[in-house]
């Protein structure tokens, strides 16, 4: 009969279900929204993305249309950002340039994240390979990213894709380090043992239990690499090894305006502002993500 009372007691004690709480993702979104710099950064990035997407509707849709009669027009109502040495409208070029620059930033950040996840995970899982893989990553890290990108880009030839590949490979090592560090911690946690006890194999443990839990730090560094990549693209273009010239990437516009910087300052100013804004926006956004996803802050929840 002691059993009976004991059976009842747990149910009576646990029926007080907590009041319905918002889901985890909604909590995260609300927290992000409350974060001021995240809001500002997300706003900036959103505006740039929307402008880039709407470029054909805002402008006449021809960033490469030359008009030799309108060369070097200063900013005016007709040409808000002025025109360049071929009479091309800078405003149109900057908006179309956003498409290329953002694509390069996004694609190389994603590629770097994917590569970093693979390399970092391999390093954390196969402990024998760890030393070798990480020394290779160290060697790559020892090069300045831009120098490495120049080298790779020079080897692949001037194309948008080779810029992406070059920048992505330059940022793989730091991504790999982040994933490896997170995975090394997570693989020792109880829930990984619990999964092993359930009979889960290596694939399931890696892809279902370890990798998803490494995503927070990876996501944060994706935003920073995105910003770095936009800056690096500008630097590569400025050096003349970015996307080939007719492409109006931000770096290209600046590079082409270099020779006229005194007479036609607007050619370099506006794409330069665009680069700074995009980098600022993604950095603020990344700061916000980091603050919200940081495990130390998570504890206070």
């Amino acid at each position, binding site marked *: 009969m002691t*059993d009976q009372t*004991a*059976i009842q*007691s*747990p*149910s009576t*004690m*646990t*029926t007080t*279900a*907590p009041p319905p*709480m918002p*889901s*985890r993702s909604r909590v995260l979104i609300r927290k992000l929204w409350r974060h001021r710099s995240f809001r500002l950064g997300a706003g900036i990035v959103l505006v740039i993305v929307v402008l880039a997407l709407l470029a054909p509707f805002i402008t006449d849709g021809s960033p490469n249309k030359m008009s030799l009669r309108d060369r070097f027009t200063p900013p005016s109502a007709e040409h808000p950002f002025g025109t360049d040495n071929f009479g091309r409208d800078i405003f149109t070029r900057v908006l179309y340039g956003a498409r290329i620059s953002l694509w390069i930033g996004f694609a190389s950040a994603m590629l770097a994240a994917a590569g970093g996840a693979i390399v970092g995970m391999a390093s954390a899982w196969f*402990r024998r390979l760890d030393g070798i893989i990480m020394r290779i990553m160290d060697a790559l890290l020892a090069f300045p990213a831009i120098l490495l990108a120049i080298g790779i880009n020079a080897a692949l030839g001037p194309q948008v894709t080779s810029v992406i590949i070059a920048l992505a490979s330059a940022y793989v090592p730091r991504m790999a380090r982040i994933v490896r560090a997170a995975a090394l911690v997570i693989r020792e*946690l*109880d*829930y990984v*043992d*619990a*999964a*092993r*006890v*359930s*009979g*889960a*194999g290596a694939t*399931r443990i890696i892809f*279902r*239990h370890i990798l*998803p*839990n490494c*995503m927070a730090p990876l996501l944060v560094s994706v935003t920073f690499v995105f910003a770095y990549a936009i800056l690096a693209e500008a630097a590569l273009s400025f050096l003349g090894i970015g996307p080939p010239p007719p492409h109006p990437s931000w770096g290209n516009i600046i590079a082409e305006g270099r020779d006229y910087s005194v007479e036609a300052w607007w050619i370099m100013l506006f794409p330069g502002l665009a680069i700074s804004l995009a980098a600022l926006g993604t950095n603020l956004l990344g700061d916000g993500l980091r603050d919200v996803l940081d495990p130390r802050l998570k504890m206070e*929840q």
Partner: protein
Amino acid sequence: MLDVQNLSVDFRVDSGWIRSVSDVSFALPANSTLGIVGESGSGKSVTALSILRLHAARTTRMSGKIMFDGNDLLAMPERRLRDLRGRDIAMIFQDPMHSLNPVLTIGDQIGETLRIHQGLSATEARNRAVELLDMVRIPDAKSRVTEFPHRLSGGMRQRVMIAMAIACRPRLLIADEPTTALDVTVQAQILELLRELRQEIGMSVILISHDLGLVAEFSERVIVMYAGELVEDAPARTVFDTPQHPYSEGLLRAIPSPDEDVSRLYAIPGRIPDPGNRPPGCNFAPRCALAEPACHAAPPPLEAFAPGHFIRCPVRMKTTEPAE
């Protein structure tokens, strides 16, 4: 069903290998309960983890045999062992706050075992998970199944862990300090739940704890471990009422009694010896009130004190007559 024979476990450290568990043997028939008791560092968890071979292979050396249904788990290829894990042998851990994956819903995690071993579809697994949550007495299981672990209390999470463990109706459940991280009231509920489930499913349970009282109440048989060695092995009642090894006595005396008004709580003097620097004789001798010169000289053997009652204490062997 489970027969552990002369299990020894060594861990690699910078200076070589350190013996963590030495020469432990015990057997567990089907549908029975065994308690393993000892203080921190006595090797009880290491023993339990060895059964499922959860130690990192590169830094661990295990010898002896762990027979499960006549197959040696220690000699089994990893693939075959994986089939046993979760299906025939399950385990729950000490800290429910860290033993659930924060990015998966509890339904997903409970269903995972079923999907691995029974090949259930996502929907079938989800439905089974609801049933299992009911079984572990989580109210409102249907809506709870889609929740993430961070929204559950420690006691609830431990129930979820238990649901995960019993999903495939294992024949052996290893509970490694399942209640240590929980409130006292919740502890009682969890133990009661384990007791009921054990009868419902008909599984054997190994309960590991530092709390001799709790273990004696739950299990049929109790083994007491000290510094990696088995020091007493007897039916639970015997260990609780008339423990023979001085260490078991000490553990029992360390449980404060609510009836007595004591000004000072009892503690066994001294500390458990460092695994790399164990005494030459009996491991417990430096802390033992009964220790004789011989105890410090050579390690004592495990001897039968009475039928079904084994102790590793020569002093008690010669001074005490077993109560019939």
